[in-house]
């Protein structure tokens, strides 16, 4: 195998970052937004006084949290084209591409994890505030939207961001559906040029720097929020 070949990284720099890392970061950002949106809705359902809503949301969250992400990626990869084909009335499965498949998977999967975070956030708000909202004549959505959720988000911000760092790392699993995210790109170069040691070590280094950097920022944020409260 010889010495450590740095050249292979220089040669594939553009491919790794312009194609791969862009895919990874876009997927992470969009899945985070979608996941927090649906996760918050799920959390509100789980805390709802309507038993059926609570049971449906609870069942969904527990199902997602009991399954390995890889299996869920496979599920959605094959299921989504069927649903999409059904909606479009095509009568056959329609391919939607690896990116959209991954986006739907991670949004739906992470929603279950964000749900549990938001549920803890909502439950951390004293009940009296909800009653105060109702006493002022606000309805459920106004009370949630103006009083409870803003505070819940603020309290849970560090945890939500930590979960997003986990999501960022998890997106590397799109490898199993042959998508070209950062890790997928690194794996493709590694196999093409037979530079496995270099490319996988480099990929690990890049993920480490980004994740460590982000988690250090989250820690600082946590300290600041803690002081303000």
């Amino acid at each position, binding site marked *: 195998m010889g010495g450590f070949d740095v050249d292979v990284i220089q040669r594939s720099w553009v491919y790794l970052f312009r194609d791969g890392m862009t895919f990874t970061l876009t997927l992470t950002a969009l899945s985070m937004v979608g996941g927090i949106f649906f996760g918050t809705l799920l959390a509100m359902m789980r805390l709802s006084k309507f038993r059926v809503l609570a049971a449906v949301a609870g069942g969904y969250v527990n199902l997602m949290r009991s399954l390995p992400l890889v299996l869920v990626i496979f599920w959605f990869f094959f299921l989504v084209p069927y649903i999409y084909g059904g909606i479009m009335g095509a009568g056959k499965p329609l391919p939607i591409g690896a990116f959209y498949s991954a986006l739907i998977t991670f949004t739906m999967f992470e929603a279950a994890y964000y749900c549990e975070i938001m549920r803890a956030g909502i439950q951390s708000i004293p009940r009296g505030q909800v009653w105060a909202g109702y006493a002022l004549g606000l309805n459920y959505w106004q009370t949630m939207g103006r009083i409870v959720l803003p505070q819940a988000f603020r309290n849970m911000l560090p945890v939500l961001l930590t979960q997003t760092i986990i999501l960022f790392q998890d997106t590397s699993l799109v490898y199993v559906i042959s998508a070209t995210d950062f890790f997928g790109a690194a794996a493709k170069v*590694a196999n093409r040029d037979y530079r496995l040691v270099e490319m996988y070590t480099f990929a690990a280094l890049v993920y480490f720097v980004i994740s460590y950097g982000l988690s250090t920022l989250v820690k600082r944020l946590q300290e600041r929020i803690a002081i303000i409260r």
Partner: protein
Amino acid sequence: MNYNWNWGILLAQEPGGTGTYLKYLIVGLGWTLATALAAWVIALALGSVIGTLRTTPYKWVVRLGNAYVELFRNVPLIVQMFLWFFVVPELLPKAIGDWIKQMAPPWSQYLPAVICLGLFTSVRVAEQVKAGIQSLSRGQGMAGTALGLSLPQTYRYVLLPMAFRIVLPPLTSEFMNVIKNSSIALTIGLLELTGRARAMQEFSFKVFEAFAAATVIYLLTNLVVVLAMRTLEKKVRVPGLITASGSGGH
């Protein structure tokens, strides 16, 4: 959308000639559990030691422990899996590297997968153990010192017995995480449950039957683990404590 369900496929013969697809998947569960359990032994042993060391008064030991945790926590599991499978054998002395690479499958995949999962999970165990020790009141350690116990004795007889009973619920969820995370070993070719469901889908073209069967098997496994751990938790519960279970991560 109409999909032709055919559950009979589970009783059809798989092309490898080892029996039905159902048996093929159950053997996959066996590999999942064998990987997860072996990794769990490593994780529990290493994680307990590192978690404990991170609460000691020795600055350098704490720093080393922290560095270990950051290292394994900030690299995606699949990347670590590839490092153990592709990279580590190249960096070891040639004789050992070749010995690992030439092991008969599935052992050449099983060994790196177990080491990888074990170390990855040890970090999470270490975090829980550390949190458990730190959740004890400072007075307990001081009481140990006041009784004339040495630092190791204080840990052995005062702190750790309490800490482990407190962190049992979060450790349960970590154990379920190892089971789930072992599915990532399919990327290096270990045919555990998810890998076999994927292979079954490729052989039989029965996509949803394969994944549905795997899903049911995972859910049943979770159920068994939860029930077993609940019994254990009841047995070792510290009287008078209300312990909240931990969550998050996967």
